[in-house]
């Protein structure tokens, strides 16, 4: 892999930028790998990257049924933050945040990570109490957090409607200054390039149709490109986790729902931070090319169709216009849906399974993008060592039988 640098930019300018090396190879599948990762989204590619980088396991394949970054990695609203309530999730997301902070340098690929701050608005006294509790919990865990009152919110984002006469008046907000956004495609491409450079095979258009096992141990996968042997298989398939689990008669506490998002036409810079509101339920930021990136909640029915109902978009935009009357006449450019794997406690499942050599990383639901680096990092450790890292030990599937849930649904008090 040739490194990206000022020198390489100048060198390639002489050939009119027509001779840049492809960012990753397009190899034929080998007969056998040490580890197979099913799912070529951000989490799967990050897992492969850290398997190679941190654990020296380079005979790895990432199997993707579509193309790299074509699933939820390229469909989310790119928000990154680590201000969760409970210790377990705060530590996991903060690990991710620390990796984000050095990611572009580590990957030699600009993921455009922009720590522009994330505001979580409060609209009622109870919202403000919850925010105070969460900010204090964050600070006790060494994660930055501040509380703002309505005047401070207004000073930071003048276009927000902070009138006390609003239907849902803004009373204040939490602010995590280290939060922000990143370029989602670049995260997938950067991890793919980094993993490929360390010897990982990225196999696109390679759909897994079955997982073979012999006497309680996985031995390989049947794919649309033939049978591939492996003694360790990591499944990172987001919305399709239940489908893959059913191949080995494993059942998960997961339901797949459509989650929609949309972007506006590009407009001049008007919003320099990320604004989220759990109460009116919407979140918004402005991308570097000027479009407003908007998302909200899931459709309530389950679905694998990568699209949802219009009424959800309508209520999302009603919330955004409630917060930002100035956006009422901005036109929307595109809308889409992704399939998110929602767990009952809104926390992921990362760990081993009863089947030897099979590992699952799923249940990230609506908030997986921010966790991409940390998720890959702990999952690589789990696969390499055959046991969870202390950061993901609490996120085993056992918690649904012991009752030790990590309830972030209400606790984080926000839409993801």
């Amino acid at each position, binding site marked *: 892999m040739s490194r990206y640098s000022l020198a390489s930019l100048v060198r390639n300018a002489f050939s009119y930028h027509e001779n840049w090396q492809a960012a990753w190879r397009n190899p034929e599948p080998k007969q056998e790998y040490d580890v197979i990762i099913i799912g070529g989204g951000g989490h799967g590619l990050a897992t492969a990257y850290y398997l190679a980088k941190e654990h020296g396991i380079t005979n790895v394949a990432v199997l993707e049924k579509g193309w790299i970054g074509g699933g939820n990695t390229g469909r989310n609203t790119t928000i990154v933050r680590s201000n969760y309530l409970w210790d377990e999730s705060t530590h996991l997301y903060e690990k991710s945040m620390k990796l984000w902070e050095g990611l572009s340098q580590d990957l030699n690929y600009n993921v455009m990570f922009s720590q522009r701050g994330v505001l979580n608005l409060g609209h009622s006294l109870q919202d403000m109490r919850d925010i105070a509790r969460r900010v204090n919990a964050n600070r006790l865990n060494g994660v930055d957090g501040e509380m703002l009152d309505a005047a401070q919110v207004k000073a930071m984002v003048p276009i927000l409607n902070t009138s006390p006469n609003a239907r849902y008046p803004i009373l204040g907000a939490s602010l995590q200054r280290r939060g922000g956004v990143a370029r989602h495609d670049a995260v997938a491409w950067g991890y793919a390039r980094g993993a490929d450079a360390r010897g990982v095979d990225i196999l696109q258009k390679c759909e897994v149709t079955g997982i073979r096992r012999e006497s309680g141990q996985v031995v390989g996968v049947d794919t649309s490109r033939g049978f591939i042997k492996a003694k360790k298989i990591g499944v990172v398939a987001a919305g399709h986790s239940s489908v893959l689990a059913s191949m080995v008669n494993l*059942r*998960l506490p997961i339901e*797949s729902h459509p989650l929609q998002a949309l972007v506006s036409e590009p407009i001049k810079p008007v919003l320099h931070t990320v604004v989220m509101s759990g109460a009116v339920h919407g979140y918004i930021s402005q991308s570097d090319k000027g479009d407003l990136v908007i998302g909200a909640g899931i459709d309530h029915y*389950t679905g694998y*169709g990568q699209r949802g*109902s219009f*009424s959800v978009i309508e209520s999302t935009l009603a919330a955004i216009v409630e917060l930002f009357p100035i956006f009422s006449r901005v036109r929307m450019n595109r809308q889409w849906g992704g399939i998110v794997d929602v767990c009952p406690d809104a926390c992921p499942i990362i760990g081993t399974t009863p089947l030897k050599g099979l590992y699952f990383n799923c249940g990230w639901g609506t908030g997986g993008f921010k966790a991409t680096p940390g998720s890959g990092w702990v999952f690589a450790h789990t696969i390499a060592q055959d046991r969870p890292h202390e950061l993901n030990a609490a996120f085993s599937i056992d918690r649904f039988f012991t009752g030790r849930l990590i309830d972030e649904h209400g606790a984080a008090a926000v839409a993801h």
Partner: protein
Amino acid sequence: MLLIACPWCGPREETEFSCGGEAHIARPADPDALSDEQWGYYLFIRKNPRGAHLEQWCHAHGCRRWFNVRRDTVTYAITHVYKVGEAPPKDSA
């Protein structure tokens, strides 16, 4: 947007309804007799199929009655609507 045929009120648009998730999950008759794992299965584990799905809906802004639906989770097409207590369509997963 789904068009759902309430067995009592006829076809109405989705916003009148609330979705109650997977149908035919019976509460165990004697929860105390269950192991933690069996209880966890009852509470949390779901089929989540890709394809035909039997699910319960409530006509929340209409007659407020519950009923069952067979809906395809890929095409979202609703193929059967039947009342609570009636047998699900035979070819269902």
